[in-house]
């Protein structure tokens, strides 16, 4: 039986992962942590008499003391956690704007602390981390279907949002061959959820105005939040180390994705966006504009065969528009079986 700690469980993907693990008979207990109060969706898990025991705690994992207190707490030790599922912050979009933690972005600091404490904690044998596929270098000549071995975007001019993903990715990547801890790093493209939500796409920032590069409409690979949860579940039980691309079958242009998520993304000439981002950097603004790199111009999809072979994961959801009760068309995800 597996005992799992899930970070950022209060965010949309985290809630989905907890739900998926709750219905997994191989899971003994779930220790969920998050920034916010207990999500209402957890009420039935917390009160459930059957299934795994679910515990929720409010912890800011970007703070060293808070993370340390969590991993050294009697509660954590009593839970005998053997698997940690680290989901990055994705729903609030505050990772770039928030003050840096120890010179690192929140996302990077969290990943560093989680990896460090997983290595130090005696019982933790397995770490599953969710990363972004936007860490890959995107340029006019990039392959359409990127593999796990494709080049990462280490360009210093890359958008700050992407930079945080790359830093977090490389921290987890550095421990993949550690024989003291099995690390599975899942790289997911744009995550979409029913109702018209899209996460983890740097070209569709949560708080900044959305724009597109004029004359470009890159193809975006998609995966549903339910498939992400299934991929995490597969990684929890696979007992492997490695980096795996996970993606659904659908891919749509950025303009269509913006329309599906009901937020306009007017096109602007790309040089203007580049100048604005460079000007913000020159002015020393930490609130650097999230526009840069190739995500606004060059698309990609993912080669998921390694995940299919090693983790046994294959996306099962269809993603598309469906007519809602009020007659409007809404983004929906549905199982294809």
């Amino acid at each position, binding site marked *: 039986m597996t005992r799992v700690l899930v970070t950022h469980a209060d965010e949309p993907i985290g809630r989905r992962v907890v739900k998926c693990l709750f219905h997994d008979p191989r899971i003994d207990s779930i220790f969920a942590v998050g920034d916010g109060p207990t999500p209402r969706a957890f009420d039935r898990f917390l009160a459930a008499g059957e299934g795994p025991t679910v515990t929720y705690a409010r912890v800011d994992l970007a703070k060293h003391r808070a993370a340390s207190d969590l991993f050294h707490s009697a509660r954590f030790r009593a839970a005998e956690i053997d698997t940690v599922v680290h989901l990055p912050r994705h729903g609030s979009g505050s990772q770039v704007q928030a003050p840096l933690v120890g010179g690192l972005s929140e996302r990077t600091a969290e990943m560093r602390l989680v990896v460090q404490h997983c290595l130090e904690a005696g019982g933790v044998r397995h770490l599953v981390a969710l990363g972004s596929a936007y860490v890959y270098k995107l340029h006019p000549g990039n392959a*359409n279907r990127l593999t796990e071995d494709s080049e990462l975007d280490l360009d210093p001019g890359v958008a700050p949002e992407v930079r945080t993903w790359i830093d977090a990715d490389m921290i987890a990547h550095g421990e993949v061959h550690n024989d003291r801890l099995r690390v599975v790093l899942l790289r997911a493209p744009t995550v979409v959820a029913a109702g018209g939500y899209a996460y983890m796409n740097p070209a569709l920032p949560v708080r900044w105005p959305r724009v597109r590069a004029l004359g470009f409409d890159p193809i975006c690979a998609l995966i549903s939040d339910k498939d992400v949860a299934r991929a995490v579940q597969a990684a929890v039980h696979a*007992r*492997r180390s490695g980096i795996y691309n996970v993606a659904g079958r*659908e*891919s*749509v242009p950025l303009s269509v994705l913006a329309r599906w998520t009901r937020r306009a993304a007017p096109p602007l000439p*790309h040089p203007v966006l580049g100048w604005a981002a460079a000007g913000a950097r020159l002015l020393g603004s930490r609130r650097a504009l999230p526009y840069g790199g190739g995500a606004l111009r060059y698309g990609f999809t993912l080669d998921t*065969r390694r995940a299919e*072979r090693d983790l046994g994961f294959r996306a099962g959801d269809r*993603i598309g528009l469906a007519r809602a009760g009020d007659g409007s068309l809404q983004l929906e995800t549905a199982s294809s079986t």
Partner: protein
Amino acid sequence: MNESIHPAMAAVQEAPEIDGEFRLDRDPFLETAGEGNPLARRLDELERRAPRWRRLGSRTVSPARPEPLRPPISRPRRTTPPLSEVELPERRDLWDRLLPERARRALTSIAHLVEGEGPYDRFGFSAEATRLALPWFHALYRYYFRVESRGHENLPEAGPAVLAANHAGLLPFDAAMSAVDVLMHTDPPRLVRTIVDRWAGELPFVNVFYARVGQVVGTRENFADLLEDGQLVLVFPEGVDGVRKTVTQRYRLQSFRVGFIEQALRARAPIVPTAVVGSDDQAPILFDVKPIARALGLPVAPVTPTFPWLGPLGLLPYPVRYRIVYGEPLHFHERFGPEGAEDARLVGYLARQVRRAVQQLIDRNRK
């Protein structure tokens, strides 16, 4: 020897090692500090009160099992249904009225190439965008370039294949006419995926249009991917050298790149030599002003009878008659196998064979 070592370090060296770690209950520093040391007593006490969660024996996870050699997962190929099995949709708008029934059936058929629920394939191809573009190109095909074609029996009905054609003309109407011709003369209809130069991926609007009508930026991975999907890939092995040809070099093929031979061998795909007669006359280049091309980062800075004198309008092709001929497929993979792709001399030789076959087709069909 030990006399020169600090006692604490000596204790470390003698301490028992379990799975690469020293046991906490044999802390060498505590032992050398002595029983009477108050600090040691305090540390002892703290150690006793400390939670035992760190003492879980070996910290090494089970070693990775040796991976058995497994064949790579092959992706299912998407195919198009024959025209007779396609249910013809009702005419929706003016675009549908402009197209003959066969073209509409073909469009419906190639929509099956899109995987999943979305209206786009992973390269950005959209059957709907192609439906809007096809009437224009079909009109050009039929009335402007008055395309004649033959040798369609040499186009494979299914499976991967490479069309290797000559390339000319400032704007790639040779690719467009070939794509329309293949779509209109194959059953089940086949969508031609043309490999375009990388710099086309940087051109605003052009890159979007190319992607929507099924063209793909030329990388080795994309080429291999298309062939693995069982698609019909059109390449111009001359590359931009074909576009740069001046009027004195018309219909004389430039040297061929060899990448398409490697990919065809690896994917066990036949190569169909294809001659496009007419494209060399659509915009005859009198001079190529190379310094200007270099300065502007363009592949060519042409001077034609109409460009730059008429501005952008001067780039439009002349209404020349096109003749497209498909030669007999060359099954190099049957003789040399996928491992032949590793032999640079063989690959170069095969590329010259394809070039000769295309040149012969051009010479035979020019008159």
